[in-house]
Each structure stands twice: as C-alpha cells, then as structure tokens.
C-alpha cells in the first residue's frame, strides 16, 4: 500500500477506510479513521468499531472474503466522543497477483445526521398525517378533475364515496361542477379562494361550510393538486338565523304592543268620557275594548313565553277527548258572546295520546281563536259557525277546526305558518299559527289547512299517539 499511487486518495477520503486481513484485523487505516478511533495496531474491526470481543453477525467483510463480492450494510458504532452513531458500510475485495482475496477494504460513511433527519422527517410526516386526519374540519386533496384523492377522517365520516368521488358529487349530489368553483379558480390562478357552500351529508343533513382552497405545488412549482379546507359553520348560521328571528320578533312585538296600547288607551278614553258624559253605552263599549285588549296582551305574552322557551314537549299520557272538550267549553262562551255559532263533535272513544298537555291546549286554543276571529271580521255572511271535531285512529288522532269566516287565498294559506305573518287585520301578532305548527311538529304531527277565500277554513291537526323519539329527544336548536 506504501507504493500505491492511490494512497493519497485513500488517506484523504472523508470516510473511515480500513484494510482488513482474513482475521478481520485492521492492517491499515486512513487519516480520518486514525483521528477518530486512534491506535488500531493489532486490533480487529469489531473491537474498535463495535467494542465487541466477537465478530458481528452478518459481517459484510466476512461475506466479501467468502464470495469475492462487494457487500454493504448499515451499522451502529460508537464514535470518538463515545456517542452512538450510524454508518453505511461497504466492503470491497483486494486480491493478490494470483487472484486470491487476501484483504478487504472496508469503507464506512457516518450517516448519523442523515439518519437523524430521516427520523425528523418521519416524525413530522406522522404529525402532519395526524393533524390532517384529526383536525375538526373537512380537508381534502383534489386533482384538476376535481376528484378527491385524499380525504380526512371527518370528511370520510360525513360524506360517502371518499376518496375517489368528485367533490361536487360527494358534497352537493350534483352532476356538474359548481359555478363558481373555488377549486378551479385556485387551479387557474394559484391563489387562495374562499366560498360558503351548503353541502348535503350522507345522512341527508344540510351543512353550511366555509371553504378555502389553496394550491399544492410540486418541486417544479406546478399545481398538480389543491387542498380544500372546509369549516362546518352550520351552528353559527343557525345562531344567526335565530338572532335574526329574535330581531324580527322584537320588531313584531314592538309593533303589536303599540297597537295594543293604542286600543287600550282608546278603551280608557271611552270609559272616562262615558263616565264624564254619563253615557252608559259609551262606557260599556270602552270597557269591552279594555277587556278585549287585556285578553290580547295575555295571549301575546303566553305565545311569547312558548316561543322563547322553545322546549321539548313534556310528555304525559292524556285523554284527547277531555282536553278537546275542555278547550271547547272555554271557547264556546267567547264565540257565542259575539253571535257566532259553536258546535263540537267529539268521538267519545278517541283514547289517549302521549303529549304535552299545556302545549296541546295552547295549540287548540290558538286554532279555535283564529276560527272565531275569521268569523268575527267577516261581514259578508249573515250567520257564522265554528265547528270542532275530534276523531281517533289506531296510530293517531285528528282534531279539526272549521269555520265559515273570511277564508284564505293561496298566498295566505302558504304563509300561514310563517313567523310574524298575520292576516288578522292588525289584531294578530303572527305568532299563533307559527307556534301551533311548532307544537304539532314537536309532537311529530302536522297541521293541514283547507281554505277558500270568503268561504271558510278547515284546519286539521294530526298528532301521533306516541311521538317518535327523533322529535322528542334532542333539544331544539
């Protein structure tokens, strides 16, 4: 080796180079090796590198002596500072003139830093994977055809067919891409885009989602994919809607109260001036106005309380016939007092139903009051009649309220259950039917309206004997 023209390169190689004999004894070592491992004279590689007294298993030098081929493997070793380090080892045969392998050159490159970097990359990748999977929002990676190539856990749970399906099919159940499509915009200009979408989950729920799309570039800077992040803002939108409703209801209440106060003030004026003028008719007229408007205030407050509570029905088993008769008894007086006929046909064998008795009573009173009001304001007929019916069926009961009052046209029928909608010539708050319908729905039931303008109205309330668990368990949002 002393005369070898490559000796210089052997010495200067930035790796640990050693020449081993058949006993794996180090017969020569380069500068780097000598610097880091010191005296090697008479020692075997495994004694110096591994601090072992026995040969290593699967020793590449031994294999090279055996088969004359180069071999390599990764080894742990203890460096000059006494720290555990990693090296990549290659062994190459050295033959004499007769072709016999007398020595092996062992080259070991310290890959400790590469190893550390690899571990860091693996850890980071794992953390990002965990973040991608577990973050409480929807994340997907999409290709230029808008096919979802990766989807996180939340997205896979809420939308079927992912990954694999196209985003507009999976989210919107559409056959064509959305217009505009933020993913396409990002593919086009490489910018972040944002939109709000209403998606339909595989359970059929409508989900309001705030969507951001950002480009994912490859090493050449080309956009091969985009990442789409969606935040479920359904609850925020529901809250907004409730706040809007609250604003509207306050405005409606305010308007209603102003009207009520004016009417009450009118009643007081007629009472006072009737007394002053000794005009009994005026006094009585004023007193009725006061009474009527106090009743309206009470109704309005009760309706508001029901609306404000937004409660789950407190179910108990109640006899439908008794509840209906009780309401009829109370309301009959009110109808008869203003000259409206009142009749009820109640099936004695209607049986029981599981319901919130207060809510059902409130529902029936609202409907009957509406019927009486519809007759009271109708000046086109000589006689008016409100008819109440109750029938029992195996799985539900039907309560009917019929009148021959002013009736409703198509527009009024369609808007009858809307909050704040009232056709009652100023005396309505727009809460009664809205709340009645809410009560029916909270019991898993429904209200049907059959009505014709100037002829009359029939309201049919269908209530199941036992409300389904789906409507009574979860608190209403």
């Amino acid at each position, binding site marked *: 080796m002393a005369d070898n023209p490559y000796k210089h390169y052997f010495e200067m190689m930035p790796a640990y180079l050693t020449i081993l004999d058949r006993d794996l004894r180090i017969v020569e070592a380069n500068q780097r090796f000598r610097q880091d491992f010191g005296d090697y004279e008479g020692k075997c590689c495994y004694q110096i590198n591994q601090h072992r007294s026995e040969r290593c298993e699967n020793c590449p030098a031994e294999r090279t002596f055996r088969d004359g081929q180069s071999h390599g493997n990764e080894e742990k070793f203890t460096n000059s500072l006494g720290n555990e380090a990693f090296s990549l080892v290659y062994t190459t045969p050295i033959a004499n003139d007769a072709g016999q392998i007398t020595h092996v050159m062992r080259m070991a490159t310290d890959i400790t830093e590469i190893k550390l970097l690899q571990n860091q990359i693996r850890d980071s990748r794992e953390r990002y994977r965990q973040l991608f999977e577990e973050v409480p929002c929807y994340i997907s990676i999409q290709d230029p055809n808008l096919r979802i190539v990766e989807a996180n856990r939340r997205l896979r749970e809420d939308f079927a067919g992912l990954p694999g399906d196209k985003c507009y099919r999976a989210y919107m159940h559409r056959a064509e891409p959305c217009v505009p499509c933020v993913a396409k915009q990002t593919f086009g200009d490489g910018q972040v885009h944002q939109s709000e979408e209403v998606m339909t989950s595989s359970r059929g729920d409508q989900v309001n989602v705030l969507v951001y799309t950002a480009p994912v570039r490859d090493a050449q800077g080309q956009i091969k994919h985009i990442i789409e992040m969606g935040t479920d803002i359904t609850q925020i939108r529901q809250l907004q809607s409730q706040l809007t409703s609250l604003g509207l209801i306050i405005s409606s209440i305010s308007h209603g109260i102003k*009207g009520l106060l004016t009417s009450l003030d009118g009643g007081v004026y007629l009472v006072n001036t009737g007394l002053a003028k000794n005009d009994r008719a005026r006094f009585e007229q004023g007193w009725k106005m006061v009474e009527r408007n106090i009743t309206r205030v009470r109704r309005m407050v009760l309706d508001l309380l029901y609306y404000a509570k937004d409660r789950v029905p407190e179910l108990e088993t109640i006899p439908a016939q008794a509840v209906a008769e009780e309401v009829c008894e109370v309301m009959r007086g009110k109808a008869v007092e203003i000259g409206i006929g009142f009749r009820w046909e109640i099936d004695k064998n209607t049986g029981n139903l599981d319901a919130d008795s207060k809510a059902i009573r409130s529902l029936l009173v609202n409907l009957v009051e509406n019927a009486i009001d519809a007759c009271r304001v109708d000046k086109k007929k000589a006689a008016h009649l409100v008819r109440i019916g109750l029938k029992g069926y195996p799985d539900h009961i039907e309560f009917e309220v019929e009148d021959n009052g002013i009736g409703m046209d198509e527009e009024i029928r369609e808007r009858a259950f809307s909050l704040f909608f009232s056709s009652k010539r100023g005396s309505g708050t727009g809460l009664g039917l809205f709340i009645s319908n809410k009560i029916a729905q909270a019991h898993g039931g429904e209200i049907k309206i059959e009505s014709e303008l100037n002829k009359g109205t029939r309201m049919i309330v269908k209530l199941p004997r036992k409300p389904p668990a789906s409507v009574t368990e979860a608190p209403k949002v």
Partner: protein
Amino acid sequence: MPGPKRILIVDDEQDIRTYLSTLFGDEGYETSEARDGGEALQQIQAAPPDLITLDISMPEKSGIRFYREIRIDERWKHIPIVVVTGVSEDMKTFISSRHQVPAPEGFVSKPIDREEIVDVVRSLLK
C-alpha cells in the same frame, strides 16, 4: 254656514277606529271608517273627506299602496293625510322616497298621544 269637517279613519283594527272616531267626534268633527285601503277608496269616491288618518300595516290593500293611489290622483291629492302607525318613523321618508310622492302632511306614532293627534288634525283642518 259650512257643516263640520269630515275625517276618514282608515285602520284595520276596529278598536282603534272606534277610539279615533269617538275622539274626533268629541272635537266636533264628523267621521267615517274604513278597514283597509280598498274600502277607503270606495268611500272617497262616494264622498271625499276633508282629512284622512291612515294606518300603514293592513291586509288586502296596505296603507302605502292606498297612499300612493291617492297622491297621484288629481281628484284626491289635495286631501291631507295623517299617517297613524306603529311602524318606525322612517316610514315617513320611505313612503315619499319610494314612490316619488310628497310626504304625508302629518305623522303620528302609535301609541298615540291624544293631544298631539288632535293638534295635528286641527291645524290641518283650519
């Protein structure tokens, strides 16, 4: 000698019509009543009043539609109108801006102040 001035009270609420009718009657005016804009128009055609008090929120024909029809009709545009409503006072601006018609001569908010409405009516019927 001319007879008492006549006021047409347009409001969908019976109690408010009765109130205003009695109040104006006590002030020496004649009154007539209409439940909505449609009825009011019929009455004006039959016998035009000297002043109209008008509610805004009414079914069938609203106060705003009625107001516009009166204001663009040469025969009735001179009749002073006092809007009596629980809707915000912004309505005053809204009524005139939306239809490019003059603002109402009077505006009284519900709940009404008796003296205020009598003063407004009296000054318009001088």
